[in-house]
């Protein structure tokens, strides 16, 4: 039987050019990391189908005792031709009550944790974004 779980999008402030403030809803979901039997503080991560892989701020791993620069280093490029250096680590990712052993790239220059296709989307049979009801659903 398929196991489903879902999260509502998280509203965040957005200010238009006239200074009016609205809610902008993003598919940010609660997650946490575990490494060497240590479980970290929960955080919101963006479900990002445009990211090839998971990319997290280095601080989320450092608080678990991960030696960031011991991971394999790689260059990551995004919009505007910006390139940053990241280090890959195998780590346990918790989403709700489910845990997944996966690879995450950690960078000192990354701010928002990004859940990408290889290493996150690849863990599920299907991920549904329902923009009208602002809900993201995961089907294992």
């Amino acid at each position, binding site marked *: 039987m398929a196991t489903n779980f879902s999260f509502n999008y*998280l*509203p*965040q*402030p*957005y*200010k238009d*050019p006239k200074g*009016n*403030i*609205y*809610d*902008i809803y*993003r598919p*940010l979901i*609660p997650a946490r990391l575990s490494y060497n039997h240590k479980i970290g*503080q*929960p*955080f*919101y991560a*963006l479900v*990002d189908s*445009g*990211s090839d892989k998971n990319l997290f*701020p280095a*601080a*989320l791993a*450092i*608080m678990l005792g991960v030696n960031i620069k011991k991971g394999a280093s790689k260059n990551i490029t*995004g*919009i505007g031709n910006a390139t940053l250096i990241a280090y890959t680590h195998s780590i346990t990712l918790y989403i709700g009550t489910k845990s997944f052993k996966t690879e995450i790239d950690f960078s000192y220059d990354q*701010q*928002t944790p*990004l859940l990408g296709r290889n290493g996150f989307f690849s863990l599920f049979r299907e991920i549904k974004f329902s923009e009208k009801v602002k809900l993201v659903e995961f089907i294992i």
Partner: protein
Amino acid sequence: MTTKSSHLLDYENKWVALSKDKVIASGKTIQQVQKKLEKIKDKSAILLKVLPFNATYSP
């Protein structure tokens, strides 16, 4: 104007710790927020980077 995210308006570009939709700690870095959470012994608050309000986000 009332928004559902109005509790974040004072924290643009900061890291915050949320508990039941309330900000219980904030700082410029994750480490700063984590230290505050250790003091109040809250292991369930959820960390969030509050993005700039005047820009949309395209990672």
